[in-house]
């Protein structure tokens, strides 16, 4: 049995990577099998939080999309492609259809509808996937999306598939991208537990509220952790009732969190004064996994 825990937040910078890296470290130190997945594919840095890369097992190019290519010698300028494209990615020109690749989603409707077979599809590399071991001894699968890339949800789906290929028993900890969009939905889908990282600000609480709406529609159990709770203690007690989600723990603001990143050492591996608090919160999270 694999238990998948996803750490996400509606808003960025609330401590997702902090929680997921230390959670992975705790599970590893308990002697359980674990693979950590960095699903923040536009800005991946989970392995840095786990001490940096020690050993690379494999790297693969990921071809996650298609690119339509027009053979203008066959084009009859019937403009069916333009009429059927749902993304406004095709414009008219004297030669035939001009494709705006920044808008094209690569679904290939244009190629299918073209009666002259003037449009063919070529596979496009949208990122790389690699598995490595961190200095702290944890296996991490990372997705790194191409600059300005789309289809991040499909890349995240592939990362989760890979984690299940290399793990038969144990835990998968997924560090999600911020927000509630396509990659986040792919991160949460099928997870056993969603941990929402919240900081006590109206902006973060609003984001958490939107994320919970997504989690409920996907029927994934959710709990939350309030990071930097002492920045605005007045609001913390209200979070549970406002969001109708259990707050399993509160972590104070500490310079030692920033220091642990600088030293590339998970906080749990340091002598930090908040280490016990963090460990207690992470143990509670593990206790919440169905």
């Amino acid at each position, binding site marked *: 049995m694999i238990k998948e825990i996803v750490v996400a937040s509606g*808003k*960025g910078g609330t401590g997702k990577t902090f929680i997921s890296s230390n959670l992975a470290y705790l599970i590893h130190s308990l002697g359980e099998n674990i693979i950590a997945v960095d699903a923040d594919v536009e*800005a991946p840095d989970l392995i840095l939080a786990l001490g940096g890369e020690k050993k690379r097992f494999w790297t693969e190019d990921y071809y996650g999309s298609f690119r339509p290519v027009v053979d203008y010698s066959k084009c009859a300028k019937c403009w069916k492609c333009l009429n059927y494209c749902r993304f406004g990615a095709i414009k008219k020109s004297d030669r035939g259809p001009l494709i705006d690749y920044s808008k094209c989603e690569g679904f*290939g409707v244009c190629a299918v509808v073209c009666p002259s077979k003037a449009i063919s599809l070529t596979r496009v590399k949208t990122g790389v996937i690699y598995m490595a071991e961190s200095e702290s001894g944890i296996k991490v699968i990372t997705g790194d999306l191409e600059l300005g890339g789309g289809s991040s949800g499909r890349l995240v789906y592939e990362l989760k598939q890979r984690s299940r290929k290399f793990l038969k028993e144990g835990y998968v900890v997924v560090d999600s991208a911020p927000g509630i*969009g*396509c990659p986040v939905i792919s991160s949460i889908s099928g997870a056993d537990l969603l941990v929402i990282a919240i900081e006590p*600000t109206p902006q973060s609480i609003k*984001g958490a509220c939107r994320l919970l709406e997504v989690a409920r529609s996907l029927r994934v159990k959710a709990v939350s952790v309030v990071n930097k709770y002492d920045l*605005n203690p007045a609001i913390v007690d209200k979070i549970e009732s406002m969001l109708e989600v259990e707050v399993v723990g509160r972590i104070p603001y500490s310079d030692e969190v920033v220091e642990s990143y600088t030293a590339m050492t998970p906080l749990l591996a340091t002598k930090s004064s908040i280490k016990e608090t963090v460990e207690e919160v992470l143990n509670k999270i593990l206790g919440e996994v169905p």
Partner: protein
Amino acid sequence: MIIAVAGGKGGTGKTTLAVSLALLASGEHKVLLGDIDVDNPCTFTLLDISLKTLRTIFAYKPVIEEEKCSFCGTCSFYCPAHALVVIPGKKVIFMETLCEGCSLCEVVCPNGAIREGKETIGYLKFGEKGYLHLIVGELKPGSRRYHEVAGETLAHILSISEKYDYIVVDCPPGTGASVAEALKVSDIVVAVTEPTRLGVHDLIKFKKLVERCGKKLVIVVNKYGISGGCYRELEKVAGNEFFKIPYDRYLVEAYSTGRSVVEMYPESPSAKALRDLWQWLRSL
């Protein structure tokens, strides 16, 4: 002039900066603040204003007419998002949360059993505060189509851009397609980062994106002065010409109560640094 406010890592202070610049600029100019961080737009929270909906953003969704369906499975075979499952001879299951709205299923169905329907994917909203106008795109929770909502919002911003002296675009975190599109239409890109290892690391990837778009980059380091930070690496990546917003309790207090520091504590060190930044940007 269009100023895009972006940066790789989330939570570094993009919205704080975008709102501050827009407020400062609106003292003397016609300013539009565009918020394309559609997953969780927060500009209006920090400006403490309410928004009105200009329009709903729709996208394609297939409607299956089962009486015409032969359960052949062609739609399921072609669907790139794996949103359609056909139980042969019995039933079609459409999983709306997976659908990406390409309409390929409708195109390939041999029985004409799929017709066009529409789904709400987000909202385009408007707000104002004095001379500052605000356009906000908001993704409907549960929809995957953040890229399209951000794209529609950006297109709307550009369609009214001639009315304004300055346009400040608050971008989502990351280096994805929505960010790239905003950078392409901007005159200046402001990258907001923080002196932490993750902030510095994410800035490396973001800088490459800005270079690829061929835009002028201004790096702003927020929370400058936090103890234990990654300052040496920061200088390696950012050089020594970057703006610093000092970490002070005024900014933290204003932000954590959902306000803007330039309004709440205009004489604080962080508000002064934001004013200096604006003065410098306008001189460009």
